[in-house]
C-alpha cells in the first residue's frame, strides 16, 4: 500500500459518492401539484376554447412554465426547511439532465407560436412530441433519482409514440378533430399521469 494507492482510493470514494447521490427532494408534492395544474389547464383550454395554434402553444408553454416555477419554489422551500443547499450537486445534475430534451420540446412550441398558419397535423402532433421529449427528459434525470422515474419517463415516451401514430393516421385520412380536443390529450397525459404518480410517490415515500 503506497501513497498513489491512497490517492486513487480517495478518488474512487469521491466518484462513488457523486455517482450515487440521488435527487429525491419534494418529489411527491411537486408531481401531484404538476398533475393538478395540468388537469386544470386541460379543462380551461377545453372550456374556454383556445382553438388557434398560436394560442394552444402559448397556453401550454405557459402552463409548463408555471408548473416548473411552482416545483422549483417547493423544492427551494423544502431545502430551506431542511437547512440544505437549494442548488446542491444532485439538484444541479437533475436539472442538467432535464434540460436538453425540455429545450427541444420548447423549440417545437416556439415554432408553433411564431408561425400562426402552421398546419393542423403539426399542432396535433405537438402533444405527442412533447410527451416523448418530456419522457426522455425524465428518463435522463432518472439516472440521478430513485427508481421509478425512468419507468414514468418511459410511459410518457410510449404514450407519445401511440398518440403520434394515431394522429398521423388521422391526419392522413384527413379526419383530425378540432384543435380544442388536443387540450384533453394534454390534460389527461400531463395532468392525470402526474397526479396519480404523485399520489403513488406520496404513499410509497412515507413507507420507505
Amino acid at each position: 500500500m503506497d501513497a498513489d494507492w491512497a490517492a486513487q482510493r480517495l478518488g474512487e470514494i469521491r466518484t462513488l459518492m457523486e455517482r450515487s447521490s440521488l435527487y429525491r427532494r419534494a418529489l411527491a408534492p411537486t408531481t401531484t401539484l404538476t398533475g393538478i395544474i395540468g388537469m386544470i389547464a386541460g379543462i380551461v383550454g377545453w372550456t374556454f376554447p383556445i382553438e388557434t395554434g398560436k394560442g394552444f402553444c402559448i397556453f401550454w408553454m405557459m402552463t409548463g412554465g408555471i408548473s416548473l416555477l411552482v416545483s422549483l419554489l417547493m423544492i427551494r422551500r423544502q431545502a430551506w426547511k431542511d437547512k440544505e443547499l437549494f442548488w446542491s450537486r444532485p439538484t444541479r445534475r437533475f436539472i442538467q439532465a432535464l434540460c436538453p430534451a425540455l429545450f427541444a420540446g420548447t423549440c417545437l412550441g416556439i415554432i408553433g407560436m411564431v408561425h400562426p398558419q402552421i398546419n393542423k397535423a403539426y399542432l396535433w402532433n405537438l402533444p405527442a412530441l412533447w410527451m416523448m421529449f418530456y419522457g426522455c427528459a425524465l428518463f435522463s434525470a432518472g439516472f440521478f433519482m430513485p427508481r421509478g422515474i425512468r419507468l414514468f419517463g418511459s410511459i410518457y415516451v410510449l404514450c407519445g409514440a401511440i398518440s403520434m401514430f394515431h394522429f398521423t393516421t388521422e391526419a392522413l385520412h384527413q379526419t383530425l378533430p378540432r384543435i380544442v380536443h388536443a387540450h384533453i390529450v394534454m390534460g389527461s397525459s400531463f395532468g392525470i399521469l402526474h397526479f396519480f404518480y404523485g399520489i403513488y410517490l406520496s404513499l410509497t415515500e412515507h413507507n420507505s
Partner: protein
Amino acid sequence: MKTETFSQINKVIHEKGRMAIMSALAANPEMSFKELKGALGMTDGNVSVHIRTLQQAGYVIVSKTFVNNRPHTSYRMTEQGLKAFSEYIDLLEEIVRLNRESH
C-alpha cells in the same frame, strides 16, 4: 510513522465492496436495496454479504418494512459508521500528505 499509519486502516471499510457501500450511504441519508445495487452495480449476494459485515460492525442500520405488501429493505449509516468512514478518509489523506512531505 508510516507503518503506524497503515496499521490504523479500518479493515471493515477497507474492502472495496464495503467501501463502495459506505461511500453511497455517506452521500444519501437512506437507500433501498435496489437503489444501492443499481448505483454500485453489485449483485444481490454481494450487497447482502457486505451489508451484514457493516451491520455487525455497527456502521449500518437495516430497516425492513412492507410497501404495497412487498418487503422493502433500506439502509442508513449510523453515527458510528459516519465517524469510522470520516476517520478512514482522514487516514488516506494523511498517507498522501506524508508521502508528499517525504518527497
